[in-house]
């Protein structure tokens, strides 16, 4: 169960940018980068790691789900969403118990 305070999204540790050169894709580099990020978050003593992904980016979504992330918010469900291009999925993982 996601706690109420978890939704203070501004204070959450999040992945802001994740990019892999096109020539190097499908080699597990993004997966490894996320695992490195999780170790950093654990070292910082933070409990959750958060990311926003374009809902059309099926490859990235599948990767995050495979790594144990859960979708906490689908921007398409928001009634008062401002027009910002492609709607995103907000996903989260509990890093430390």
């Amino acid at each position: 169960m996601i706690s109420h305070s978890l939704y203070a999204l501004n204070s959450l540790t999040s992945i802001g940018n994740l990019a892999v050169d096109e020539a190097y894709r499908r080699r597990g580099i993004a997966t490894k980068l996320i695992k490195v990020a999780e170790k950093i978050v654990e070292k910082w003593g933070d409990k959750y790691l958060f990311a926003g992904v374009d809902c059309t980016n099926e490859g990235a979504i599948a990767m995050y789900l495979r790594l144990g992330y859960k979708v906490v918010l689908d921007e398409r469900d928001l009634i008062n969403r401002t027009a910002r291009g492609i709607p995103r999925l907000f996903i989260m993982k509990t890093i430390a118990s």
Partner: protein
Amino acid sequence: MLLWPLLVSCFTLCLCTALHIPYREKQHLRGMNNGRLFSSVKPAISYRNAREQDLPQVARLVSDTFSGPYALHQLLQKEKDYKSSLEQFNDRYDKFILQRRKKHAMVVSVHDPLASTNSSDAAAVTDLCGFLELGVLPSPVPVNVSLPVGVTILATTDQPYLGS
């Protein structure tokens, strides 16, 4: 008559073994499809914290990933996106990494050309092949949105969010 299925099985097994392509070779064949040259050794990828001198490559990678692809007539826009990204990364690197104002990390994955036996392979690709930024970043969620679970998010959109 009873030996016949056994013979067929043995033949099939031998054929499959002979035609089997090892995983590494498959990866290289995939690399060739991307226009890269063939090499007999998989390039080594290592992971480390970004350094200041990596930032131009990081900005190029991120702007190409999130703003591209560009047509010929969009070259000026491409340069503008790159400069904007570089400015943002330099700023965040200075404030958050060097001055340690916030918890922040910039991780890069780097291709080590020395791990490849074919030197032309190393020259054909860029050194920096991946990037991840991590920190307490401003939320991309619009202000005061209501969630289906009955909770309201108090979030700001005061800074650009490049995506992930």
